[in-house]
């Protein structure tokens, strides 16, 4: 209590917060070390923490494999135009439905387009959509979840809407919205974002509900912090690590739903190479040209696997307690 009263004279909330943080950082608040010594100590502590983190990361198999695969996917996505030197739209009618061989490593499709090039571009498209959807639904879900958790009357309204959205099986809602909006990459991103916001919002809300009962939030109220300040500076950090983990699973899930929608003809319009479109072409020629199904299918599995392993690893690193709780979608 004495520390609270002494803060009365603090000129700004920032100073108060800094003081609180500093006293939490260094264990010996009472002694009189010089600021330089303290700074050096803090630096050492930070370096030690980083070393520990690296060691924990390397000990975590799924994090390492996931990151490696993710790096591969990222490189492939960024370099897609240069890796084969071919145009994913270039028709070579004489070479249609060629099996994998020297000239076309993964064969060609029914229009004689190089499958390897199309799979690379498709992977790039999947990664792009997964990334945008994960990011935008995380941001929206964060805002909705934070305010629903913090403001009681908003909770009723926001969470009823989220419950309603959550009651739809994801693919179904996305198909219905895409049917109305019309197939395009932009529309797909919008639909998938709407579909995945509720799961993030629920997660953020539940961590906010817990965090707002903590004493430090009460202390911030007592110090006169504004609601927005409490929400963004003190509640948001508590929600961040589960949010990042869930975001990586949304990334994987969005890629699957995108592929399913494109596969059904309700996603990305036809000539654009996306993994779902490639699989949909493959279905037509499944009898004689199995490579048109196998390679896009494997590419899809690798991208999703990368994201899932990465998410699993992240969860172990950021949130060891959630290990047993399992995944919620």
């Amino acid at each position: 209590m004495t520390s609270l009263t002494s803060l009365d004279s603090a000129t700004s909330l920032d100073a108060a917060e800094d003081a609180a943080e500093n006293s939490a950082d260094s264990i010996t608040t009472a002694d009189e070390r010089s600021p330089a010594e303290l700074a050096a100590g803090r630096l050492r502590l930070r370096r030690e923490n980083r070393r520990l983190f690296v060691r924990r990361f390397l000990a975590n198999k799924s994090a390492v494999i996931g990151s490696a695969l993710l790096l591969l996917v990222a490189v492939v996505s960024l370099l897609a135009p240069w890796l084969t030197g071919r145009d994913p739209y270039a028709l070579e009618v004489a070479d249609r439905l060629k099996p994998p061989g020297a000239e076309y490593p993964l064969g060609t499709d029914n229009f004689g387009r190089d499958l390897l090039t199309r799979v690379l571009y498709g992977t790039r498209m999947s990664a792009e959509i997964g990334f945008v959807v994960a990011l935008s639904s995380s941001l929206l879900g964060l805002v909705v979840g934070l305010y629903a958790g913090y403001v009681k009357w908003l909770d009723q309204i926001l969470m009823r809407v989220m419950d309603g959205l959550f009651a739809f099986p994801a693919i179904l809602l996305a198909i219905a919205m895409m049917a109305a909006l019309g197939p395009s990459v932009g529309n797909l991103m919008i639909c998938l974002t709407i579909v995945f916001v509720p799961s993030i919002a629920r997660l953020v809300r539940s961590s906010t509900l817990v965090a707002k009962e903590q004493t430090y939030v009460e202390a911030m109220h007592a110090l006169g912090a504004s609601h927005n300040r409490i929400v963004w500076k003190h509640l948001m950090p508590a929600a961040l690590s589960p949010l990042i983990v869930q975001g990586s699973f949304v990334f994987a899930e969005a890629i699957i739903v995108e592929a399913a929608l494109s596969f059904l003809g309700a996603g990305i319009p036809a000539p654009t190479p996306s993994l779902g479109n490639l699989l949909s072409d493959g279905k037509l020629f499944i009898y004689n040209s199995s490579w048109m199904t196998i390679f896009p299918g494997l590419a899809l599995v690798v991208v999703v696997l990368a994201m899932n392993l990465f998410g699993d690893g992240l969860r172990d690193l950021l949130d060891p307690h959630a290990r047993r709780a399992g995944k919620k979608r």
Partner: protein
Amino acid sequence: MAFYIARRLLATIPVLFVLSVIVFLIIYLIPGDPAAVMLGDGASPETIEALREQMGLNLPLLQQYGRWIGHALQGNLGDSLFMRQSVRAALAEHLGPTLSLAVLAELIAVVIALPLGIRAASRRGEAADKALTGFSLFGITVPGFVLSMFTVLLFSVQLKWLPVSGYKPLSAGLWTHLQYLILPALSLGIVQAALLARVVRSSMLDVLNESFVKTALAKGVGERGIVYRHVLHNSWLPILTVVGGSFGTLIAGAAVIESIFNIPGMGQLLVNSVQRRDYSVIQGVVLFVAFAYVLVNLVVDLLYAIVDPRVRLQ
């Protein structure tokens, strides 16, 4: 008990309301005039106006919703523009195959997941447990429709054991019926089994830590007795909840799988309607499946409370 049921029922109403509003608003996502889009190019202004009138698009929004939901609650979901039948009739026609597929897939999932989950929980950290970890990663990673295309390649194209696609109703004989359903159901079921096995394992582990298990052990109850009589008995509820809740996912998953195997179920109805821009059918299918999904979850929750009194008191 009655209080619990009443509370649970009341809590479902806003969800159903929001859900119906979302389905209703789908039409308004259409860029431009929905009636003109539905009729396509070359429709005369008179026919467009007639359809607008028929759909009630000229009414105020609230009144439109009232009209639509009023009809829907009486089982009238409107008429299909293309199939010359009511949406309700179309749904009834396509419900059977999807239900068959979902039930079979659920059966397969349970048959795989139960023994695997039980074994993994009772021998924690051993081979079965590690297999389950790998299997559940497989389940969330490989989408059902990709798995089913791979199984088609293997069993139908390479080995020629099973038909590639098509559907025969149950009236054509059980074996013929199953022959066409086994591949799609297997692909759906395996993915579902991976999620279910994880739940079986974790709910068994929760019970294994209870003190009555220690008591049983001290009494000299054998391992089988503990696992099957004491632990499994007390782990049923979360398992059943997940099984019930997964029906919605299975039906949605069936939508994609049906189009691969050319099964005339609700998924195919939906996909065909998307291509024909037959919005009343799209709304009907989505509303029906989502309602069914919410109601199944409600029933499971209520059963849960009947079997386990602790739930009611919370």
